[in-house]
């Protein structure tokens, strides 16, 4: 009898001592958090592969420094080749077989769409997904999924705010890719223009990804008398649009979506002279910009790259992106403390308050709440001076009207 009493006392004491949550969540032990990730290391979208590598390198550094709250990160990153069926298979492997606590920064819109329902049925967090679509911030219907970067619509909001404030008698001509990506950008602009949209937008032109050129669209836009050009194109067509507008002597205020803001891939081929004065929106520090040379955040990033990811390019925005999103996750895990249940991971991800990260542009703050699943919503406009992007003006916040 006595033995049994002692035993039960011991058991209840143990139950009090042991962190209940750590035992409940798959992938979480006293010393480790297992996190899953999919990324296209092969296939047509493999340029994104470096994001997975830089995140892996970042967690290596984190573990070397002792991990988060005494737990090391076990980051399992697998290749899905940007094919949705493979993503489903790999994510099911991660969740059901490897028993990860959650998946993080899975890359691509179609690939994330394929697992969207599954993650929410399984109630496994699908955290900070790497896509600019708008549907990831829908806590009412998908409480286990959260985006990260500013959405295409948010960027559209920002351009609209700029035009409303700075361009009297604006007449906007739009060129956009006829798919979800293009429509998201246009919807963002129209939503923020509000009732004025019908009056201000004088022409909309579309193209298909399969079209050979967008020359005739540019001529039409010029003839419409538009004085603002909202250019929602992927790099190949952005080059054509910039060139053609320059050739036909159309000089509107040129708003270029950030998808095509690469100096090397778009502006140089289009012609630096033709690209002058184009405006785009940014939220990460541009590592090619000399103004960050002595910036502490940039120097830390560079030192990290040299030590933990020496093969990686130090002029590639993706390596800044991966580094920054991983830092965002670390903050979430820190806030979780010892309660690493999936519900609490989601709750803490939705409780980021004015978080600043070293490679975000100064002043940008990450904010989330139970109803706001869009972490980064601020961007700053930058103007191309013929050599590089020069940030100007104040920060825009897409969440404000």
């Amino acid at each position, binding site marked *: 009898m006595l033995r049994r009493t002692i035993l039960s006392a011991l058991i209840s004491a143990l139950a009090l001592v042991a962190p209940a949550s750590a035992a409940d969540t798959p992938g979480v032990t006293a010393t480790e958090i297992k996190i899953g990730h999919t990324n296209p290391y*092969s296939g047509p979208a493999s340029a994104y592969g470096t994001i997975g590598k830089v995140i892996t390198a970042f967690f290596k550094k984190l573990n070397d420094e002792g991990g988060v709250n005494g737990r090391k990160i076990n980051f399992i990153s697998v290749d899905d080749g940007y*094919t949705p069926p493979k993503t489903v298979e790999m994510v099911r492997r991660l969740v059901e077989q490897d028993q990860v606590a959650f998946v993080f920064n899975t890359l691509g819109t179609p690939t994330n769409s394929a697992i969207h329902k599954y993650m929410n049925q399984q109630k496994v967090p699908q955290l900070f997904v790497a896509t600019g679509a708008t549907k990831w911030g829908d806590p009412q219907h998908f409480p286990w999924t959260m985006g990260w970067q500013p959405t295409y619509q948010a960027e559209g909001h920002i351009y609209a705010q700029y035009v409303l404030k700075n361009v009297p008698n604006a007449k906007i001509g739009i060129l956009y890719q*006829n798919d979800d990506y293009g429509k998201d950008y246009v919807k963002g602009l129209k939503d923020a223009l509000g009732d004025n949209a019908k009056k201000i937008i004088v022409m909309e032109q579309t193209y298909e990804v399969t079209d050979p050129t967008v020359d005739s669209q540019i001529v039409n836009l010029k003839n419409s008398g538009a004085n603002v050009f909202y250019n929602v194109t992927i790099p190949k067509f952005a080059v054509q649009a910039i060139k053609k507008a320059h050739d036909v002597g159309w000089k509107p205020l040129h708003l270029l979506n950030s998808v095509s803001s690469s100096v090397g891939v778009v502006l140089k081929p289009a012609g630096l002279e033709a690209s002058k004065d184009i405006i785009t929106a940014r939220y990460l520090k541009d590592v090619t910009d000399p103004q960050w040379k002595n910036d502490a955040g940039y120097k830390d990033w560079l030192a990290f790259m040299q030590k933990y990811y020496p093969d990686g390019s130090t002029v590639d925005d993706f390596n800044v992106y991966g580094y920054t999103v991983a830092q965002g996750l670390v903050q979430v895990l820190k806030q979780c403390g010892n309660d690493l249940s999936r519900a609490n991971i989601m709750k803490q991800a939705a409780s980021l308050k004015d978080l600043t990260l070293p490679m975000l542009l100064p002043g940008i703050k990450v904010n989330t709440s139970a109803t706001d699943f869009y972490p980064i919503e601020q961007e700053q406009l930058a103007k191309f001076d013929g050599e590089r992007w020069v940030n100007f003006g104040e920060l825009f916040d897409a969440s404000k009207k």
Partner: protein
Amino acid sequence: MTARARGIVVAVALATALALPLFVSNFRLFQFTQVAVYAIALLGLNMLTGYNGQISLGHGAFYALGAYTTAIMIDHWNVPYPLTIVTAGVLCLVVGFLFGIPALRLEGLYLALATFALALAIPQILKYFEHWTGGSQGIVLSKPNPPWGLTLSPDQWLYYFTLAILVALFVLARNLLAGRTGRAIVAIRDNPIAAQAMGVNTALYKSLTFGVSAAYTGVAGALSAVVIAFVAPDAFNVFLSITFLTGVVIGGLASISGAIFGALFIQFVPNWAQDISKAAPWAIYGIFLIGFMYVMPFGIAGAIRRLAARAAHRGTAARA
């Protein structure tokens, strides 16, 4: 192999397949369901390539057509999924037959190129008809629950459902290929002029083979839409068509069981390759591929057939 020995092998394989859900997790079962889906597609392609000698690099297009038929019917009209799979099969039969008619003029590598064009075009075509196909975002479906109050998990149900279709289609293929029709199809491959001289209507048989082959692949695509519960253009790129051809050759040309071996290969070997080396998974995959072709030039099914023949020969020799 004698008919009796073959019967025993088939029975054992079937029993193993039926008992599998008792031993493996839902995730593994999902993978084996995909193997069954691939096996149906490979069998379809094998009829065309292995038996009839026409090379297609575009069967991914029929797979996509089947998948989208199912997805659109479920998403837009709420049609029950078994019905959509039948529709997908019939539609692909017709489209495949029609594609087969002009393709008759194209022999060997020229046909391969024409079908390759089909595979290249399909993702863009799917994005073009955005209203129906959901564009690059694709269509999200719900995973079906087991009917009639069966106490199976959705994964177990889909496994049995796919397995049943697989068995039915394999039996059908066997009956088709073992008889008169099958001999005509093979005769066209081996010597089209002689076949014609024997009274085989080569044009009709070639088109029909193309149609049936497309129908099998279409059914597989339809099943994949149900199993994955999602379709998007990125799932049906050129690589898929090439993967199918790889599976057919690795499994064994002109062999029905080869489709299953080929399906196991294309499902699991890329994963193993990734487990071995994350840096160069496709290099490892390539080594596997070359290794298989070197050791088993007639595919896995061919190698097994040879081993069985050798064993049987030894058996008779010992008895004599």
